[in-house]
């Protein structure tokens, strides 16, 4: 194992890894070896290996895949697998790479999962805007069907499953698993309430359905080939394996990196030459988003945290989808906050009153502040509007200099899904740390008081 183990990104440098031949030829072992390994044991054993490995979901919530599979009620058929390839969380860029560059790895992962849980069908729900990913997966599926790796009596066994590529059409909320299912049923992508609609019990067509992220499933071929022990040797005890992170924003070398979980720190990611290579123009770091647009922000104090779910949650944020956005000292926090809030307002599905009305209200207040038409009462109004979407203390990182303790993740919510409450993350993060920037906008109109920001 090299210094930086590569589980899911091992073929990214191989030019034709997206073809079946390329896939077979690369990666150090016969392509679809993971599938063959799975087929050589029983479905239950495959599920056990995955459970043993503690494969944490990479879609955002970080829930162990093996445990989730186990939630399918026994004896209820059919079961479905829905692959979440809707990657739309601001800052997130990894599933697209996996789909474009290594579609067979994903297909193989789907097959292993389908074998283990007894799925009749797998739907690969790929974000509509990702035309190239669609094409690559379509081509890979066509090859795989032709090679009898998908379809009827796969590799001559009694295992048969169909994998259908499904096109999304542009709606962030559809990444939420119950909305994804609604969308796949041909409906508006509006989330269902959990409980009672936990997909593993009542999912697609109200049948047991496992929704897994693209990256989660892409880990399976490696795990089946190498075993859960090998997997657990990588990463930390509670977060084994690697994960993909996209480091974007104000770093010198933005990129998608595969890192061992629970080991690499944010400082490594921003400053180490193997990763971000430093803040752009060697500026000061002002803040960073550790897990996608929905995550409360971190600040320089949190730089030395390793990327590991539990401690990051306790510190007031989340690893989310591995999207890390770096903001240097020149960043206008009102503007950044407004942009993120605007995202949630535009992407609210409209189902819950607080999210539908609250997020657009938040956006309007912020826009006014940004445009220099804010009122002194706006900051408190904004916090109260946010409090009606996500009541009580909102997760936030500690600010030792001010003697403020962290509020752990996740937030409370008056809504069905976390989208509405996510709109509060940039507001609380920015306002708690950079309130003077907002106030200066209000009292001094349009000028950007960067001195105040540093104060």
């Amino acid at each position: 194992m090299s210094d930086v183990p590569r589980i899911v990104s091992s073929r990214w440098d191989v030019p034709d890894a997206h073809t079946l031949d390329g896939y077979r030829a690369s990666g150090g072992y016969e392509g679809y070896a993971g599938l063959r390994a799975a087929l050589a044991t029983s479905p239950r054993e495959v599920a056990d290996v995955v459970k043993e490995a503690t494969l944490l979901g990479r879609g955002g919530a970080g829930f162990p895949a093996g445990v989730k599979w186990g939630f399918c009620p026994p004896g209820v058929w059919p079961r479905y697998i829905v692959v979440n390839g809707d990657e739309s969380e601001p800052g997130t860029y990894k599933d697209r790479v996996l789909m474009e560059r290594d579609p067979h790895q994903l297909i193989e992962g789907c097959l292993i999962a389908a074998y283990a849980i007894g799925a009749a069908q797998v739907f690969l729900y790929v974000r509509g805007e990702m035309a190239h990913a669609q094409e690559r997966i379509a081509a890979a599926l066509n090859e795989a069907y032709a090679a009898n790796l998908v379809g009827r009596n796969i590799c001559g066994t009694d295992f048969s499953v169909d994998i259908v590529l499904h096109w999304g059409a542009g709606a962030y909320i559809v990444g939420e698993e119950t909305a994804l299912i609604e969308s796949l049923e041909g409906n508006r992508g509006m989330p269902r309430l959990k409980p009672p609609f936990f997909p593993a019990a009542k999912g697609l067509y109200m049948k047991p359905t496992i929704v897994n992220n693209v990256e989660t499933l892409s880990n399976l071929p490696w795990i089946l080939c190498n075993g859960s022990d090998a997997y657990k040797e990588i990463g930390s005890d509670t977060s084994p394996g690697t994960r993909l992170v996209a480091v974007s924003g104000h770093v010198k070398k933005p990129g998608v990196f595969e890192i061992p979980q629970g080991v690499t720190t944010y400082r490594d990611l921003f400053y180490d030459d193997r990763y971000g290579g430093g803040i752009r123009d060697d500026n000061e770091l002002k803040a960073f988003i550790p897990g996608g647009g929905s995550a409360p922000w971190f600040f320089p104090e949190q730089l030395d945290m390793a990327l590991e779910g539990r401690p990051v949650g306790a510190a007031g944020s989340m690893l989310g989808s591995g999207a890390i956005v770096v903001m240097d000292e020149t960043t206008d926090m009102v503007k950044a906050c407004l942009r993120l809030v605007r995202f949630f307002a535009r992407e609210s599905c409209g189902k819950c009153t607080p999210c539908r009305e609250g997020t657009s209200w938040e956006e309007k207040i912020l826009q006014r502040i940004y445009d220099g038409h804010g009122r002194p009462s706006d900051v408190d109004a904004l916090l109260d509007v946010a409090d009606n979407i996500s009541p009580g203390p909102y997760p936030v990182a500690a600010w030792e200099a001010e003697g403020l303790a962290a509020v752990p993740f996740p937030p409370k919510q008056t809504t069905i899904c976390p989208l509405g409450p996510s709109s509060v993350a940039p507001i609380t993060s920015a306002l708690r740390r950079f309130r003077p920037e907002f106030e200066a906008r209000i009292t001094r109109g349009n000028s950007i008081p960067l001195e105040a920001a540093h104060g």
Partner: protein
Amino acid sequence: MARLTPENEALARDVIARYPRPKSATIPLCHLAQEQDGHLTDEAMAHIAELIGVTPAEVLGTASFYEMFKREPVGRYVINICTNISCQLMGGEDLLAHAEATLGIGAGGTTDDGMFTIEDVECIAACTEAPACQVNYRYQHKVTTEDFDRLIADLRAGRRDDIPPHGTLGKVRQELRGDQIANITAPEQQSEPVWITRSEQGSKTP
């Protein structure tokens, strides 16, 4: 053209057969209609409704939820410029402003010659390659204003035949013929898969 052509209708039937319930094909069929006409017409939605056995209102209810479906004609090239956080930090808004100035239209607008529509869009999963945009959903990474001008010039000159007209989703489609399908039937018709039954009974993979 408004309803699906006979060829597209045949394709539509193939797509419908890939789902346990026909309504699941709503979005793919709307894409197909948009590919045919460049935008999603009312007549096409009514036709889709017939094909999947729902009302046109249901098709529209679904279609109108999603960003990609355009109910009015748009430019031959729809340029989606990302201004979400990673791109914003790297100048996405400046790129958008440049595009608006260059083409003389605001976000959401279409040039008079019907060539270009610009949109101010949310994160398109190219964050490390910011600022990014898409032309008819084909990515352009780290786009400078000069890159943008060149792109427009190339598109106008017909030099970008890698970019198909608006509406074309994937140039390669999944081909799943009826005789290849293993398991797709209505959920009610499905029972425990044979490999599970066999393995629960303790026998080995045949």
